[in-house]
């Protein structure tokens, strides 16, 4: 049963991903991205990481995609602009496929040494405890990063109008 769910989710995710990288319509790409990110949330749920699934949906689906859509709106020249591929795309495809092949081969060969079937879940309490005890420092720094990014984004996006370039 879980396997079936897995395959459905895989279809959605990978389909969305392929859509992002191939479609000519940029808005469609954003929507494909949303699908892919949603699929990933489902995977998190399958892996008993509910909190993460939630966070994924909220942040990516709710914030990131919106921001991307805003950016799309503000940087358009014409109606539903068509975007071609970069002229080097065969090479990029080859490299990506090559990398995938290497990774897949490595994983497959490695998988023979362990064949875990059991998935363990972690309670929210435990996750919180670890996050705020062992990983307290990175947590604080992450929050600082967010602050800086916020301020920085405002600064960059704002002063563009005053001075040249």
């Amino acid at each position, binding site marked *: 049963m879980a396997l079936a769910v897995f395959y459905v989710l895989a279809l959605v995710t990978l389909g969305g991903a392929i859509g992002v990288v191939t479609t000519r319509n940029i808005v469609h790409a954003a929507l494909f991205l949303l699908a892919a990110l949603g699929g990933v949330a489902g995977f998190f749920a399958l892996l008993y990481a509910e909190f993460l699934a939630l966070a994924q949906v909220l942040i990516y689906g709710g914030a990131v995609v919106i921001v991307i859509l805003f950016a799309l709106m503000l940087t358009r020249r014409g109606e539903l602009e068509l975007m071609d591929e970069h002229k080097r795309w065969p090479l990029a495809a080859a*490299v990506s496929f090559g990398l995938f092949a*290497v990774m897949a081969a*490595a994983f497959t*060969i490695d998988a023979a040494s362990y064949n875990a079937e059991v998935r363990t879940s972690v309670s929210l309490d435990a996750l919180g405890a670890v996050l705020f005890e062992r990983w307290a420092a990175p947590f604080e720094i992450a929050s600082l990063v967010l602050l800086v990014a916020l301020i920085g984004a405002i600064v960059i996006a704002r002063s563009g109008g005053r001075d040249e370039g």
Partner: protein
Amino acid sequence: MEWAWLIPVFGFAAFGVIALAGNGLPWRGRYLSILAIAAGFALFWFVLLDFIERGAGFHRFGVDWFETGGVKVAWGIIIDPLTVTMLGLVTFVALAVQVYSLGYMKGDKRIGWYYAAHSLFAAAMLTLVLADNLLLLYFAWELVGLCSYLLIGFWHERRSAAEAAKKAFITTRIGDVGLLIGIILLVVHTGTFDITEILARATNPAAGEEMSNALITGTALLLFLGAMGKSAQFPLHVWLPDAMEGPSPVSALIHAATMVAAGVFLVARMLPLFEASGDALAVVAAVGLITGLAGAALALTSTDLKRILAYSTMSHLGFMMLALGAGGFTAAIFHLVTHGLAKAMLFLGAGSVMHALDDETDIRKMGGLRRLMPMTALTFTIGAASLAGLPLLSAFWSKDEIILAVHDGLHPVYLVLLLVAVVLSALYMARAVRLAFYGPLNDAVRRAHESPKVMTLPMLLLASLTLVVGFLVLPLGGGYEGIGAFLLQPGEKAHPFTLNVWLTAASVILAVGAFAGGWRLYDKRADVVTSARERFASLHRALERGYYLDAGYQWVIDKVVMRAGSVVALFDRRVVNDRGVNGPGEGTVFAGRQLRRHVTGLFADYGVAMALGVLAIGIFLWVRVA
């Protein structure tokens, strides 16, 4: 005696001072130079007296300098009869010439440099005769050649002088290469530069293993090659007549008495090496004879006064070499001294004539000069007579010694040809003297006047010596057994003065007869001369052109040397420069340009490159782990 090394040092010091501070010195350094050489001359007398006191023999003083690869290099001097004789000759003639130059070079703008070069030359020549090892000798040899170049080309504003200096240097260079190779071979095989040691090893009967006969002959011939260059032996004599472009005092000092004697000196110094070889000695004698004859013939047809003297020098140097080849060490050196004195005086006389006639040297334009220049005429006649072999004058005695040595040591044909050469010498000397100084006064020279005392005094001094020095050959009592006893080679026994009556009589008759006959010929029977010239026209032409040797040399240079040079130059330009030197540079630029094509500035290109790199690393790690 140990202080004999100071003699050249005076000269070097004088050169240094004058060359650096010349124009600021009082009298532009003239008297400083003369002072240096006079000091050297004075010191020579002390050395001579000390030498006689301690017992004429062989002494060495040396200081080790450094040792490398098992070969020791040292500064050292030898004091033996040969050295002492040369010291005296060189210092005296140099002194006389420098005093004479006060008058001859008066008013010349670069007189400071002239005297500086003179000092340097004297110092180098003295070092050459004092040297106890071949390295020091070679240094001095090269230095002497340099000074010759500087002084021949002293009036370098004149194209012909510059060319002559170049010719002299290059021609003697050919000989010098032989000398250098010979020295290197000797050092390699004996492990030392020291002359005494090398000679000892060469003459050691047990040396068959150490120094093969081929080696001894080879090195002796190579050394002789150097001597041939410096002493103008045939065919390396071509530079000597051209060297007359230099001032006459220079010709007197360098090309009569001292530098050209260096070759003879070298062979004399290394004579045991030559004697150990036998073949080498034969070559020396043959070359000497050829040179003697060739030079005399050339002197006979030349019309330039200084050239006649130059060819005469060449001829007499040939005689000296012939004497050495016959084993007559004493004869050769004694003739070196008498010839040096007489020839120097002759050149000074020629300079006196040129000084009076605004540098005219064509004897056809002279005549009857004795009326206007009595002193010059007198000294010139004495010198010419001496060299022609007229009896009782000094060169007569030394020439007699040579004839004796050749009679004793060589095949009779040498003797015959030598006597022919004696006749020729008398002939050309008579011709020169008669045409220049005697006979009716030529209109062209009416304006001539006698030279100032500062020039005539040295000439008179040399003339008196020419009259007297000859008698040194006789045992004069007081322990002095004659020049033969004095000029000993180490290990040789003294040979006292001997007189072969027949030979002496023959040579006297030939010399006097030739001189008188020549006199009469050029005096009264000039028509005989002209008809002879016409009958032997081609021979005459060959003689005028120097046996076409100059043309021959030029051909070799043009066709062989220049061609080879252009091939090498082409190689240097195309291969070494274009490929070798520019190649890496251009290659680097090319590589850089190719790399630049990848720096597009586009993120996608860089990203692909990075991804490729990651892929490569991944594969590499995977292969390694697996």
